[in-house]
């Protein structure tokens, strides 16, 4: 059910990743300000964007689950959030590396993306204890969807709030996806964004397929061993 189209997706991901890396290291010009360090931007920002979209998508899938009662949408929502959290770890680590290389500190409060990400990350970490402390599977799915919806709505509002706060206390010091990006950089950035998106979708389908297969195996086992169960 979930694995439809996974093979072409995987191939596209591999191709895009190779192309993007090539663009990053052989095509994109060096930044005037930050030199080679700026290359981190091509992995850090796409990861952040895809992760944030993953969180919002998880919320939308939660809405579909509640409206249709179809539990497969809760599974989709869960995996999307799960993977976005993992990407979130990568965002925070690569962001810290960038901050250290460019500014000498492992953390920057001036970077709205990084700060807002920390808050969102802290919120979504609660998803696991919430989900797994509810035993009834139907209720677990429902409550998870409710959380996914509230948290998904929270992501853009939080981003806006943090951005407003930073604009007033610290002017934006690290200009990233500004309009002043030359064409080669923009092309490279978009290629990386596409690659990370494809990667996310491929792995998402992969995980859903594996989970579904496990669930089906459990059903099969229960169908085959009715007497063994006391």
């Amino acid at each position, binding site marked *: 059910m979930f694995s439809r189209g996974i093979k072409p997706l995987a191939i596209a991901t591999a191709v895009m990743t190779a192309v993007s890396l090539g663009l990053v290291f052989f095509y994109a010009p060096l930044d005037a*300000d930050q030199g080679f360090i700026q290359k*981190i931007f091509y992995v850090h920002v796409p990861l952040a964007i895809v992760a944030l979209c993953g969180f919002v998508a998880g919320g939308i899938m939660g809405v579909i689950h509640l409206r249709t009662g179809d539990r497969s949408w809760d599974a989709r929502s869960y995996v999307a959030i799960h993977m976005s959290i993992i990407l979130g770890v*990568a965002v925070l680590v*690569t962001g810290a590396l960038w901050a250290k*290389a460019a500014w000498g500190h492992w953390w920057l409060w001036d970077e709205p993306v990084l700060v807002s990400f920390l808050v969102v990350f802290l919120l979504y970490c609660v998803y696991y204890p919430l989900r797994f402390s509810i035993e009834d599977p139907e209720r677990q799915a429902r409550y998870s969807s409710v959380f996914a919806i509230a948290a998904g709505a929270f992501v853009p509002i939080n981003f806006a709030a943090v951005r407003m706060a930073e604009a007033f206390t610290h002017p934006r010091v690290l200009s990233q996806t500004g309009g002043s990006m030359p064409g080669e950089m923009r092309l490279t950035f978009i290629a990386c964004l596409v690659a990370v998106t494809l990667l996310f979708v491929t792995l998402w389908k992969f995980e859903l397929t594996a989970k579904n297969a496990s669930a089906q*195996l459990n059903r099969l*086992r229960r169908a*085959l061993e009715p007497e063994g169960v006391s």
Partner: protein
Amino acid sequence: MPALPLDEAGKYVAAAYIVFFTLIVVYVAIMAAKVARIDRELTELTDLAEQQRAERDRDGEPVA
């Protein structure tokens, strides 16, 4: 000007990309373990199904 000279900076860029790849590779490893487990369970259940079928045959029931 960046805070670090360019050869120092290279290490951080490399580290960032290494983090990205490590995450992917670790994920693939975990998924590989999951698939291996699914394969094992599938074999187990297939054996069980065949065993149950053999028992039904032995008990004299008509083969489906």
